[in-house]
C-alpha cells in the first residue's frame, strides 16, 4: 500500500540555522508533491508544489527538492525564525491522472528556538 514517511520526532532548530525536513514515499508514482504548513487547530496552508520533472523549487526562504529515483523530497527553510515553528505536511498527488485527492504524511513538528 502507499506509504509516506516524515520525520516522526519533533525537529528542534536554532534560530538563523537552516531547517531540513524529509519526506519519503513508497508504492507511489506521484505526478507532483506539495508542502503545507499547519498551525494548531488550523487548516493546512500551501507552501510549494514541485512536479515530477522538476528537481528543485524555491520561494523566498523556502527550497524543496524532489528525487523520484530515491522517492524522496527535502524541504529547507533557510535563516529560520521562531515564527516558522509549525507542523509541516508533505502531500503527494496526481497518480490517478488529472484532479485527485492528496495523500498526506503525518507531518513534522518543527520548533525554532530563539
Amino acid at each position, binding site marked *: 500500500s502507499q506509504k*509516506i514517511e516524515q520525520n516522526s520526532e519533533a525537529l528542534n532548530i536554532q534560530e538563523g540555522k537552516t531547517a531540513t525536513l524529509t519526506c519519503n514515499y513508497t508504492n507511489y508514482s506521484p*505526478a*507532483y508533491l*506539495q508542502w*503545507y504548513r499547519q498551525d494548531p*487547530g*488550523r*487548516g*493546512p*496552508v*500551501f507552501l510549494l*508544489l514541485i*512536479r515530477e520533472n522538476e528537481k528543485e523549487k524555491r520561494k523566498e526562504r523556502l527550497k524543496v527538492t524532489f528525487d523520484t529515483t530515491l522517492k524522496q523530497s527535502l524541504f529547507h527553510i533557510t535563516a529560520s525564525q521562531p515564527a516558522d515553528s509549525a507542523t509541516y*505536511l508533505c*502531500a503527494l*498527488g*496526481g497518480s*490517478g491522472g*488529472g*484532479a*485527485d*485527492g*492528496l*495523500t*498526506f*504524511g*503525518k*507531518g513534522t513538528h518543527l520548533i525554532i528556538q530563539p
Partner: protein
Amino acid sequence: DAGVTQSPTHLIKTRGQQVTLRCSPKSGHDTVSWYQQALGQGPQFIFQYYEEEERQRGNFPDRFSGHQFPNYSSELNVNALLLGDSALYLCASSPLGGGTDTQYFGPGTRLTVL
C-alpha cells in the same frame, strides 16, 4: 476575497447520530475536496466533487456522503456516527476542475463524537 469557509466550527454529537458539515469554496474555485484529520495524523482524503458529482473517493465507508450545489458549495454528511469519526474535517477548494493546482484549505470543523 474570502477564502474557504466552513461551518460549524465545532460540533458535538453522540454515537449513532448523523451530522452535516458545510463548505464554501474560495471565489472562482469549482472543485471541492473533503479530508478527515485525526489528532496527530495527516489529513486523509474522503472524496472530491466537481460539477456537482463525486469525482474521486478515498477509502471511506458509504456512511460518508456528500453533495455539491450549483454555486460550488458542498456538504459532507456522516451517518451512524462512531467514536472513531471524531476528527477535524477539512474542506479544500481548487480552481478550474482541479488538476495539479494548489488546494486551498478551510479552517476545518472539529467534530467530537461521544
